[in-house]
C-alpha cells in the first residue's frame, strides 16, 4: 500500500519536519493543533490544520480519542506521532489499529514491552546485550555483600519495588555499605511495604551513546551509526553529535551490533534508538533503554548518512522493504547539534515564552536549522521550550566544533531569552573542545564558582 494522507499528531519543529517529509513523498498532510497553535508554522504548511482541543496538552495533544477521531474525521489513512506527547503510548497504537489507521512506528506490543524498563532489560539479556551489573533481589545484608563483591564499587542502592530516585543511596566503599543498606532498606519498607533493594554498579565516568536503527517488516534491520549525547543537564540532552569520535572504534562496533541484535530479537519495526551508557574507565558498555520513536536529535544521523529518517519511517509504515543495505550506510565527517530553548539559563533555566521580535539563524552551506520559529512568532507558555535545533557538519570533529562555536555567535534571537549564550559559554570550554567530558560534566561545570553565562546577563540587560 502507499500512504495517501497522514495526520501529524504533534506540534513545533517536529510537526514541520514531518509535514515536509510527507510532501516530499507526495503524501497529503493534516496537522492537529491546540487552540494555542492555530496560527503555527505547521498549521500553515499542512494541507489542513484541525483543532483538537484547548491549549492544555492533556486536553489536546495527549488526548488519544481526539487524535484518532481527528484522523478518521479528516480521511487520513496514517498517523505520525512525532516525539513526546503520545509518541510512545501503546494505547494510541492500539486505537489506530482498531480504527484502521496506520500508526507510523512500531507495533503496540513492542512499544509496551520496551517501555517497561524491567521487561526491556530482560529482552536485552535475551539478545546477549550487556546490562549494568546488578541484582534486584537484595533482601538482606549478606546478599548485598555478595552482590557488591561481584560487581565492585561504586554502587547505587535503591528500593526494588519503587520507581524514581526515592531513597537512592550511592556507596563508594565497603565501610559505608552496612549503614547505607540499613537506611535504604528501612526507607523502602516504609515507602513500598517491601525492604528488598536493588543494587547496580554506578558508572561515574560515563558517555551516553545511542544507535539509530531502521527495521522493516520483512526482517531487515540496519543501524545508521551512533550519536554521542553525553552533554546533559538533569537528564535533558543539550548537545548531540556523531559519530562517537571519542569512543574507541572496536567498542563502537560492538555497540552498533548490540543495537541490531536487540532490534532483531524483539522483531522491531520502523525507526528506533537503542541507548547505551559507556564506562570510559573500564571501556565497557551497557544497555539503557530503547526509544520507540523518531528522536529529537535524528537530524545528526541524517546529516551523517544522507538518509531521510522520517521518509524512511513513512515507507516502512506503508509496508515497503528497506532499499538500503548495511554496506551502503556511510558516516561522512562529523555533525553536531545544539538544542536552542526559550529559557533563561542564568535564572535556573526558567522558561521564557513570548513574542520573538527578531530571529536570525545562521545560513551557511554546512548549517541545518530545524525550527518552527520566525520573526513575530509568539512562543506559547504551554509546551516544551525548544525553539530550534542548530546543526553543523564538518570534515572531522575539530572542524565541526569550530563551526558550531562560530555559528552560535551568529545566532540572534530578540524578544525572548534563549539558551544560545549558555551554549556559547559551554562550548568554549577546553573540556568540550577536547571531548574530555562525561554525563555529569555539564552540571559539574555549572557549579564551578567561575562559571557564568557571561554574555547572557549583558544581553538580558540589553533586552530589558
Amino acid at each position, binding site marked *: 500500500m502507499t500512504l495517501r494522507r497522514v495526520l501529524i499528531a504533534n506540534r513545533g519543529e517536529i510537526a514541520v519536519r514531518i509535514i515536509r517529509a510527507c510532501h516530499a513523498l507526495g503524501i497529503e498532510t493534516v496537522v492537529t493543533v491546540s*487552540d494555542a497553535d492555530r496560527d503555527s508554522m505547521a498549521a500553515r504548511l499542512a494541507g489542513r490544520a*484541525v*483543532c*483538537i482541543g484547548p491549549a492544555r496538552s492533556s486536553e489536546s495533544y495527549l488526548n488519544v*480519542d*481526539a487524535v484518532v*477521531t*481527528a484522523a478518521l*474525521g479528516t480521511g487520513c489513512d496514517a498517523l505520525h506521532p512525532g516525539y513526546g506527547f503520545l509518541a510512545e503510548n501503546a494505547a494510541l497504537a492500539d486505537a489506530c489499529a482498531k480504527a484502521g489507521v496506520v500508526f507510523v512506528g512500531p507495533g503496540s506490543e513492542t512499544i509496551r514491552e520496551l517501555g517497561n524498563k524491567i521487561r526491556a532489560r530482560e529482552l536485552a539479556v535475551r539478545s546477549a546485550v550487556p546490562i549494568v551489573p546488578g541484582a534486584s533481589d537484595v533482601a538482606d545484608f549478606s546478599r548485598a555483600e555478595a552482590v557488591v563483591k561481584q560487581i565492585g564499587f561504586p554502587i547505587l542502592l535503591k528500593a526494588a519495588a519503587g520507581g524514581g530516585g526515592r531513597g537512592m543511596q550511592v556507596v563508594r566503599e565497603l565501610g559505608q555499605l552496612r549503614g547505607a543498606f540499613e537506611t535504604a532498606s528501612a526507607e523502602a519498607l516504609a515507602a513500598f511495604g517491601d525492604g528488598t533493594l536493588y543494587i547496580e554498579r554506578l558508572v561515574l565516568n560515563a558517555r551516553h551513546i545511542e544507535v539509530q536503527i531502521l527495521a522493516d517488516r520483512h526482517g531487515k534491520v540496519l543501524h545508521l551509526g551512533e550519536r554521542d549525547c553525553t552533554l546533559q543537564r538533569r537528564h535533558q540532552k543539550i548537545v548531540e553529535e556523531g559519530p562517537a569520535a571519542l569512543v574507541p572504534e572496536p567498542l563502537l562496533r560492538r555497540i552498533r551490533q548490540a543495537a541490531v541484535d536487540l532490534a532483531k530479537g524483539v522483531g522491531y519495526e520502523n525507526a528506533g534508538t537503542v541507548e547505551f551508557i559507556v564506562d570510559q574507565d573500564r571501556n565497557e558498555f551497557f544497555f539503557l533503554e530503547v526509544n520507540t520513536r523518531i528522536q529529537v536529535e535524528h537530524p545528526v544521523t541524517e546529516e551523517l548518512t544522507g538518509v531521510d529518517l522520517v521518509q524512511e519511517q513513512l515507507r516502512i509504515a506503508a509496508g515497503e522493504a528497506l532499499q538500503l543495505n548495511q554496506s551502503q550506510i556511510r558516516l561522512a565527517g562529523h555533525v553536531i547539534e545544539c538544542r536552542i530553548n526559550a529559557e533563561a539559563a542564568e535564572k535556573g533555566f526558567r522558561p521564557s515564552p513570548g513574542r520573538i521580535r527578531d530571529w536570525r539563524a545562521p545560513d551557511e552551506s554546512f548549517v541545518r536549522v530545524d525550527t518552527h520559529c520566525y520573526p513575530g512568532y509568539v512562543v506559547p507558555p504551554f509546551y516544551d521550550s525548544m525553539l530550534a535545533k542548530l546543526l553543523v557538519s564538518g570534515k572531522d570533529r575539530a572542524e565541526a566544533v569550530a563551526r558550531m562555536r562560530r555559528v552560535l555567535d551568529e545566532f540572534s534571537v530578540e524578544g525572548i531569552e534563549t539558551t544560545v549564550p549558555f551554549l556559547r559559554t559551554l562550548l568554549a570550554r577546553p573540556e568540550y573542545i577536547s571531548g574530555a567530558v562525561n554525563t555529569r560534566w555539564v552540571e559539574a561545570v555549572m557549579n564551578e564558582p567561575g562559571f557564568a553565562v557571561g554574555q547572557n546577563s549583558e544581553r538580558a540587560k540589553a533586552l530589558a
Partner: protein
Amino acid sequence: MPQQLTQADVTDILSAFERSDFARLRLFAGPLRVEIDRTPEDGGQTADALEGAVAVSSPLLGVFEAASEPVQRGVEVQQDTMVGFIRVMEKRTAVRAGLRGQVAAVSVRDGDFVEYGQTLLHVYPAEGEGRR
C-alpha cells in the same frame, strides 16, 4: 516561490468560490492570505444577517449528532436547551445553547466532523442576555 496573484486573480478565485458549493476556502500565496467561510445551512445567510448573534461553538473535536428534535433557525432556546451531541469514539457529550435567545443559523448537520471551537450555531440573545 509562487507568482504574485493580481487583484483580478483574487476576484476570479472569489467568484469561483461563490459559484461552488464549498464551505471554506483557504489560500496562501506568498504574502497573500485569503480565508473565507460560508455558513452551509440556511443558504444565503451572510455575516451581516448574523450581526448581534452569538456563536455557540463545539466544546470538543468529534462528530456532531443532532438532538432528537433538531434545533432549527428561528426556534427559541434556553441556556440549558440541548442543541446536539459531540461524539468522540464511544463517548457522547451533550452541547447546550448556553444562552437564552432565538437561533439565527445552524452551521452543522448531523454526522458532520467538527473541530474544537468550531461554530455549531448562532443565537440572537434575548433581551438582557449577555454574552456567556
